């Protein structure tokens, strides 16, 4: 079975090689006159007033976590779909209950307004 993945391995090898090669070339032939002034952030001739990295809003977090939950739900659907002829009606019912519980969750987050941005 693992032979099927040989192309992926070759791909990984080439990708790594190209990545290293490009970085290596830059490292070898770059001028590389670095000093702290040159590397510091620059704002129209002023010293930067504040850090350029801003805090993210907590709302992104909520979206991400709701995404993970439904992502996991879908992950459970894959083996189910593949083995449906083995597990039969019982498996169908099991997945039905699983999805029903998550639909309750979906109604909850929709009605609560968690899916709205503002």
């Amino acid at each position, binding site marked *: 079975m693992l032979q099927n993945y040989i192309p992926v391995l070759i791909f990984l090898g080439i990708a790594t090689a190209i990545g290293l090669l490009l970085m290596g070339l830059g490292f070898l032939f770059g001028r590389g006159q670095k000093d702290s002034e040159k590397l510091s952030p620059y704002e129209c001739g002023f010293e930067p007033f504040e850090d350029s*990295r801003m805090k993210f*809003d907590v709302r992104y977090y909520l979206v991400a*976590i709701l995404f*993970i939950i439904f992502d996991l739900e879908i992950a459970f659907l894959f083996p189910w779909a593949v083995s449906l002829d083995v*597990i039969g009606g019982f*498996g169908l019912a099991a997945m039905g209950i*699983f999805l029903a*519980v998550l639909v309750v969750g979906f109604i909850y987050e929709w009605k609560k307004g968690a899916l709205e941005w503002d």
Partner: protein
Amino acid sequence: MFHAILFYSFAAILVVAALGVIFARNPVHAVMFLVLAFFQSAVLWLLAEAEFLAIVLVLVYVGAVMVLFLFVVMMLDVEVEEIRGGYTRYAPLGIVIAGLMVVELAQVIWLRGKEGFAVDGFRPTPEGYSNTEALGSVLYTEHVYAFEIAAVILLLAIVAAISLTMRRRPGLKQQDIASQVAVRAQDRVRIVKMASEKPE
């Protein structure tokens, strides 16, 4: 042989990446090392012919969980240097505990090795074997109870996440698209019929 070389090289990258997570000075770099570590673990699972788990690791952990981690890291706005202080203070204790665990693990493996505890390598799976199908055939029958509990945990996660992070901002001006679309001309414009007036 080739299999073993692959295993050890990917395992080595995994260890390096894991160390990178701990020692990276920038938390975003640490998250990136964690992504690399997850990828390497996925490859190891693939080598063990657990294809489904490998793909799920990439899809769920790399695709979703690590994005969440990045959000959290960016949300926290951590002062990196501040954390470093406690880091070195507790390092000796951490090293002692880690050393103890390594010794215990080594002892276990060594004792087993002495008894001739043979590790038989991966047995090649029969033709047409699908790991995903094998997993599915027990997950939804034999382990159905655990499977349904997983649904409840996901539901609980929804409730917990919403109750902890969702807040309504007071005085927010919202756009209600449905009512915008449903608006009719007669709600907005009043047409007044007037008798025409003659100039005096």
